[in-house]
């Protein structure tokens, strides 16, 4: 067993766990898009980032592949983490605005606008299907091709692979393309029709209980802190 600190709580964790597993064991919600328990960590979507270390040496790491270690101090929802996650969701949403998964994530995290040009792609290149095919189905019928902005998932040479058994596992595991957002098509890309929760905020107290889910404590007690960061701005203005 190893001993580490997650959001101020001393946690006993198994030696072989990743930080993500440890956090989830303690009931802390960390969003992921490219992670699946049955597959190797991808480290692609970067949404599972957490902040480790202190002061100047504090840095963001992806929890899905960061091994636990003794004395590790982890903050799963610090201001720096939230800011980065929101930007990542904004980038992904600009790429695939038609995905309900992404729209829900945006709503949950309080992403209220997309400042980039919309691309209307279907795939976020998380690689779950590629890993599923290779690791669980033992087929390797699809893979990544191209690099940079031309990266895409495809069978070798873009022709149907002989080793593909039409098992559908790639479709089953896809976090994005299956569920389409049926909401309105708003001008600013963010649908927001399913928006149902208040965003978390921890900029004043990094160890507060918000990580379990949104508790609204800070919203009730200190609306000014929300205003400062821009979270839930409209609500405050209305109220």
């Amino acid at each position: 067993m190893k001993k580490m600190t997650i959001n101020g709580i001393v946690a006993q964790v198994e030696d072989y766990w990743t930080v993500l597993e440890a956090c989830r064991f303690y009931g802390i919600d960390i969003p992921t898009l490219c992670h699946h328990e049955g597959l190797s960590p991808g480290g692609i979507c970067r949404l599972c980032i957490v902040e480790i270390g202190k002061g100047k040496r504090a840095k963001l790491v992806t929890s899905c592949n960061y091994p636990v270690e003794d004395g590790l101090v982890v903050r799963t929802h610090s201001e720096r983490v939230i800011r980065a996650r929101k930007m990542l969701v904004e980038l992904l949403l600009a790429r695939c605005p038609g995905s309900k998964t992404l729209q829900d994530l945006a709503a949950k995290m309080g992403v209220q606008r997309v400042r980039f040009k919309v691309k209307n792609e279907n795939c976020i290149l998380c690689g779950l299907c590629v890993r599923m095919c290779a690791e669980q189905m033992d087929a390797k019928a699809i893979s990544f091709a191209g690099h940079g902005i031309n990266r895409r998932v495809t069978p070798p040479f873009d022709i149907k692979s002989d080793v593909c058994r039409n098992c559908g596992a790639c479709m089953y595991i896809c976090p994005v393309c299956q569920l389409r957002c049926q909401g309105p098509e708003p001008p600013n890309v963010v649908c927001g029709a399913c928006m149902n929760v208040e965003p978390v905020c921890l900029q004043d107290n990094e160890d507060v209980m918000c990580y379990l889910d949104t508790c609204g404590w800070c919203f009730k007690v200190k609306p000014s802190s929300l205003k400062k960061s821009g979270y839930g701005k409209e609500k405050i203005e209305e109220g």
Partner: protein
Amino acid sequence: MNRIKIKSPLDLEKLRQAILAKTDSQKTHVAICAGTGCLALGAREVITAFKEELKKRGLENEVEIRETGCPGFCEKGTIVVSYPEGIYYLQVQPGDVQEIVEKTLVEKEIVERLLYTDPVTNEKAIPEDEIPFYKHQMRLLIGNNIKIDPKNIEDYIALGGYNAVAKALSEMTPVEVIEEIKRANLRGRGGGGFPAGRKWETTRNAPGEPKYVIVNCDEGDPGAFMDRALMEGNPHSVIEGLIIGAYATGSHDGFIYVREEYPLAVENTSIALEQAREYGLLGRDIMGSGFDFDVKIFRGAGAFVSGESSALMSSLEGKVGAPQPKYTHTSIKGLWNKPTNLNNVETWANVPLIINKGADWFTSIGTEESKGTKIFSLVGNVNNTGLVEVPMGITLREIIYNIGGGVRDNKKFKAVQTGGPSGGCIPESLIDTAVDFDELTKLGSMMGSGGMIVMDEDTCMVDVAKYFVDFLVDESCGRCVPCREGLERMSEILSDICEGKGKEGDIELLEELSEVMKDTSLCALGRTAPNPVLTTIHYFKDEYDAHIKEKKCPAHVCKVLIEYYIAGEKCTGCLACLKACPEGAITGEKEKVHVIATEKCSKCGICYETCKFDAVLIR
């Protein structure tokens, strides 16, 4: 071939004496740079001309021709040096060969017109140390390039080569070698500046066998070529460092990862390895020490990101050269999940120097935290472009003005970009900064592998930022979201700004995006990619503002934002521009002021170049 296998340090010394005895130091010989830069400028023809000329005069046995590596002054190639006097001839053409042979080699006179001429004082400089470009340098690593034929190991041995291996293997334990490197505080020259000694120690102590050592010669920064010059010009110095590193870390297999685009480096290194094997400097039981080590060359298939450690190792394993999502250092789990020590070409080349002369000597050069020398490739709008090797702690001003000879065409200096696409632009106000790893990082730039691009007043900083971002968009592997999506968006926003479509808030969005990319990207490419954008915003915010708010490009670079017009008082009505304009956008009659129709103008700039009276202006 009856080559002696070197079986002990004594054998090496004997061989050196034998080589020195058979070479006459007073014999005339001509060193001609056969590096890639000079070859492109016609060095091959110069060499052939020399051989033919000597044959014609029956001097083949009197005068030796040596094809050497790059001495760095690429601006003035082809470089020909006549020894023993050490006369430096620059910009030699095949047509000059006859004169050099006749005057210098036969009559022992100097051909004045081929010497270095100071552009200001018009003074001539004869030997290397009188030429300002070389005078202010400290050439510990590339200084030997002109003295060595890289295809002949004996040249290197004659200069004391492989002494360091002999010393390390016979007099030092591996731990002592590591201690010496740690004491010398040798930091990685590839860009990160991580202490090499500590990396070696980690590899040595990491569990797992076999261990590997690798030379990283996947140099890809635009305008940087110092690793190529070393690998082409003095491959044995790198191999020697690698043998010592392998001995220290307990490795028996080494790789040299050279990019495919460096064919001459591959060729020279292959020959060097073959010769080292023949002499028993690689292989089993090196110099009777019982230490086995051999090296293979791996030719990289050419992706910029393959220079990143985990990507390089993936590529070596035969996979796609893309960074791996791992938090374990490659020095613990690297190539085939075994402890692997990867260092840059220049780092390895420093090792023999430290072993030979000691850590105390090495630490006497440089600043508090950065020791030794660093090779920079000085390019851009500077008079003397080429490779410069300077002690750490020298100021940017000294490099650009004393060595580089100032900005070309007497223009005003604007900024210097260090560290390649991952570095930043440093403005004139900070040009007196000392060059060292930490100082440059503080300014938001970095040492990088040593690219140094000088920019004059005619450079648009937004355009520069866009250039580097576009380069990285092409070179990003596309695996992680912040790098792939972030860079593309950054490029979109910068393009908009350059095309006059910039909006209020774009700068803030760029900054916000940059912070997230720095924080969350998978590898160093994405984490450092925003540096050019952040530094240009920081130091040249007024230019961004001019683009966004006034829709003007102060440097007249961004085509959409400029307009050509004809100044009435200067125009003589000569019709030259009118005839030259491909769009037919200029109207006018003879001896009457011409007018450019803005709506037809494609802003090609031909009229601007054609006008002899400077009447065509840009606003």
